[in-house]
């Protein structure tokens, strides 16, 4: 494992090398958060309810802020790194080296995740717990565990998606659609509780809930112990299932690659 740490370091160094870009990025993210906040504020003040689908306005605000942060942690360059490697052929280099490509990409991605966590998520959850009074220290810790699991699920999903670059030339356009879909189905755009009950049942059969909605709900303390265990199991289930898909697809792709050439 230790051999892969340099990849994480490298990603962080690269981010720090362009402080201007990171600053603009966080600025843009903050504006976006405010925009969504105002939309929800109007919704709450217009209706007569102070609680919608079990969320008070305060909880909703916490939800929005967290969902932006978590979405950024999940939505990083993995897909593009892989797609670029495939398009440029450098993926072959990775096969030659005595490295596990999956681990390499994962550790690269972790650099970005750590960056988002330290700059955004950590201050945010501390602020939410101590200043804003949503969530507790306990839920915070449980959140961190779930977040990590969610990131792994997101990574495995993105990797599968990135492998499409073997078959589709222009992944760029599709990436937008995929991001929108994940954003919608993972709860990043709107808490899943707002979907019709029928649709909500489907979400358990999709990996997206595990990426964003699950950890945030844990933070807000919305699950009792039974449900909590169920959520963790669900996340682990997706890690295993997606891990399996990854393993099979990767093997197939590598064989195809070594037989056919770049």
């Amino acid at each position: 494992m230790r051999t892969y740490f340099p990849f994480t370091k490298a990603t962080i160094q690269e981010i720090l090398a362009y402080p201007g870009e990171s600053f603009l990025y966080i600025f843009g993210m903050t504006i976006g958060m405010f925009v969504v906040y105002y939309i929800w504020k109007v919704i709450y003040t217009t209706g007569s309810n102070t609680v919608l689908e079990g969320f008070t306005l305060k909880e909703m605000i916490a939800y929005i802020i967290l969902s932006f942060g978590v979405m950024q942690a999940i939505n990083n360059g993995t897909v593009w790194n892989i797609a670029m490697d495939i398009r440029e052929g450098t993926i072959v280099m990775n096969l030659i080296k005595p490295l596990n490509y999956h681990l390499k990409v994962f550790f690269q991605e972790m650099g970005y995740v750590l960056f988002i966590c330290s700059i955004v998520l950590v201050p945010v959850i501390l602020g939410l717990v101590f200043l804003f009074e949503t969530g507790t220290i306990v839920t915070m810790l449980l959140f961190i565990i779930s977040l990590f699991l969610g990131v792994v699920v997101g990574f495995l999903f993105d990797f599968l998606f990135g492998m499409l670059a073997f078959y589709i030339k222009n992944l760029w356009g599709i990436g937008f659609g995929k991001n929108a879909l994940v954003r919608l189905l993972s709860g990043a755009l709107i808490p899943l509780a707002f979907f019709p009950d029928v649709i909500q049942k489907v979400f358990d059969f999709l990996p997206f809930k595990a990426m964003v909605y699950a950890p945030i709900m844990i933070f807000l303390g919305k699950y009792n112990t039974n449900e909590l265990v169920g959520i963790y199991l669900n996340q682990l289930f997706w890690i295993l299932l997606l891990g399996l898909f990854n393993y099979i697809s990767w093997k197939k792709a590598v064989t195809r690659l070594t037989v056919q050439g770049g």
Partner: protein
Amino acid sequence: MIKVKNVSKTFKVYKKDSGFKGAVKGLFKREKDYIEAVKDISFEIKKGEIIGYIGANGAGKSTTIKMMTGVLTPSSGIIEVNGLIPHDNRIENAKHIGVVFGQRTQLWWDLPLEETFSILKEIYNVEDEAFKERYDYLIELLEIEPFIKQPVRTLSLGQRMRADLAASMLHSPEILYLDEPTIGLDVMVKERIRKAIKELNEKFKVTVILTTHDMSDIQEMASRIMIIEKGEIIYDGSKEMINKKFGNNRRLDLKIEDLNEEHMKMMQDFLREQDQSAYVCIEDNALSVTFNQDVLSVSVIISFAMANFKVFDFSLKDQNIEDIVKKLYTGGVS
């Protein structure tokens, strides 16, 4: 035609400490450092010359070329190309130059090659007749016909280089800038490209400015050599002068079975009669012969070696830039 007067280029660079801590520190305090890539260089180039512009990596070659093509603005000094200042009149200047980068292509990656040419015709606004003539000539000279319908991304490096060269000449430029045009190519392809460039220069009188760190490129194509080292031009003169001063040296490394001092002595005795400036040594498990190829042909040495030793491998290297530069510094220039 091209006048470069007292041109300097200094880059502002932010110094960063290495490693992770350094990267974090770099967020708060950044030391400014100034790199003088090019220091007060001056030269003039006349129409029809082929200039070999050599220097080690980082010596300032690319910087000079970028300034001459108008992509980079000099920090001080004047550059005039056919009366125009390149970075002030970039578009006008671009009409009369062709550029080939060894490491990047100017062709459209996904399109068939012949489509690139038709696009360039429009971009450079070449008249139909003139275009057809040039086009046919270039296709034949560079033997592009076989792969002209293939997408550029499927071409080998050698094919792509020939295509880039053709593309750069389609609009009858007066000046051709070649930045490392033979890098990464195998010997035969290099030969073809060199021949083509020479022919283009002879036929169209196009001025060629060629950067490289392959001495054979220079030997074969250039009549005049400029050497840049650490931002300064340390030599500007004819190829003959360089050869006279430093000899047209090459180095032959022979891998001999059971290599020993005996072999070295035998070679030394043999060479003494042929080329007094030659010397022999044993380096890296090979018998290394440095000789002046104007005086002694390599085949003579090889024949002797093969007749007398058990040679199982050999390699032939050019005198390299570093050697010449070193010699220039120690031996002085005149």
